[in-house]
């Protein structure tokens, strides 16, 4: 017999997390993962412009995590607001029911001034499955949808800017 309990409240990560100084967490291939290596990078903005001191985290369930591939990464944003991950390109994933999801990476943002994390996704431009992905299909406005789609920026480099507030605000997810 278990007693239902209310989950602990979130609080802001604040500006002083030492771990953000450790750049190794942004490289998901550092334990020797092999596969199609990509860079996922972009600028984090708040309502005032590029935002230093942000903390971006990613999680992908494909390729499956193992001893060599953590599936999880963490990158601080630099003075120009830039985050940058090295990871493996994800493949398609099962969705709910019989749906297929296009390749994607979950993206979480923490920062001073954010009282709980916000979540979004990075998809990849040009994937055929983007047309039928359940989440992308649920967003009617093409400008809004585009905030979830990373664009190629050179070989193996994908660019997705993240906007917390204002023009071009990123679509955040209630999951």
């Amino acid at each position, binding site marked *: 017999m278990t007693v*239902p309990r209310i989950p602990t409240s979130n609080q802001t990560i604040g500006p002083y997390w030492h771990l953000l100084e450790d750049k190794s967490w942004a490289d998901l291939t550092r334990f020797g993962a092999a596969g199609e290596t990509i860079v996922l990078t972009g600028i984090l903005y708040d309502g005032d412009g590029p935002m230093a001191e942000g903390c971006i985290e990613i999680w992908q369930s494909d390729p499956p995590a193992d001893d060599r591939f953590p599936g999880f990464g963490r990158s601080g944003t630099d003075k120009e607001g830039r985050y940058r991950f090295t990871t493996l390109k994800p493949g398609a994933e099962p969705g709910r029911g019989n749906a297929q999801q296009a390749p994607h990476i979950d993206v979480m943002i923490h920062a001073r001034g954010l009282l709980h994390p916000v979540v979004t996704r990075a998809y990849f431009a040009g994937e055929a499955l983007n047309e039928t992905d359940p989440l992308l299909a649920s967003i009617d406005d093409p400008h809004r949808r585009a905030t979830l789609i990373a664009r190629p920026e050179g070989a193996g480099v994908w660019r997705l800017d993240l906007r917390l507030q204002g023009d071009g605000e990123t679509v955040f*997810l209630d999951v």
Partner: protein
Amino acid sequence: MSDPLPFAPFAPATQPDLDSPAYVGTRKRHPLRAPVKMPQTVTETTGPRFSTAHFPPVADLSRVGGKEALGERIIVAGTVTDGDGRPVPHTMIEIWQANACGRYHHPGDQHDAPLDPNFHGNGRVFTDAEGRYRFMTIKPGAYPWPNHRNAWRPNHIHYSLFGPAFATRLITQMYFPGDPLLALDPIYNSVPDKAARERLISSFEIGLTEPDYALGYRFDIVLRGRAATPMEN
């Protein structure tokens, strides 16, 4: 393949509002549009596993290279359970905090309080098979911040937890009982529900104390449980 069992939504008013005007830092950082509702998929119901081989525990923050930090030694211990009261075993907890003087060992912290070379304020522990964790540290000091005139953060320890899935990620702060700054703190008070807020306050527990060495505080943490079980009203 059957659909993954989703994690339960949060109870109303138990999580802070992103738009909390009293906390000035939220003004340009809270999204203006409502988040898009999305059913959890395998991406959200799975999450990272951290092995102690790659992520070695640091359970004693009270010394660096064998040299004792200044301040009041404390032991912090508690449990991590899910919304159904089940222990969350072998999950990683990251901890960070200011030193006894209220200064972070961080280049961005310019507060004019002493740094302590023997305190980095950076820890990592794992829960055991029963969901219990414990670490040793120094009681953090209060520190001023520029939110409003004469603003001071209550004593607090920052926590980062993962739990079983990306959907159970939690970033929070542990406070201390009887702190007069709590009533004045916009971050603490950003949680609308009073009972939920008060669960962020640790309890002094004489049983956790090590005689002649350190005082003990308990801080129990609850992560989201699965949605299929009955929810508390």
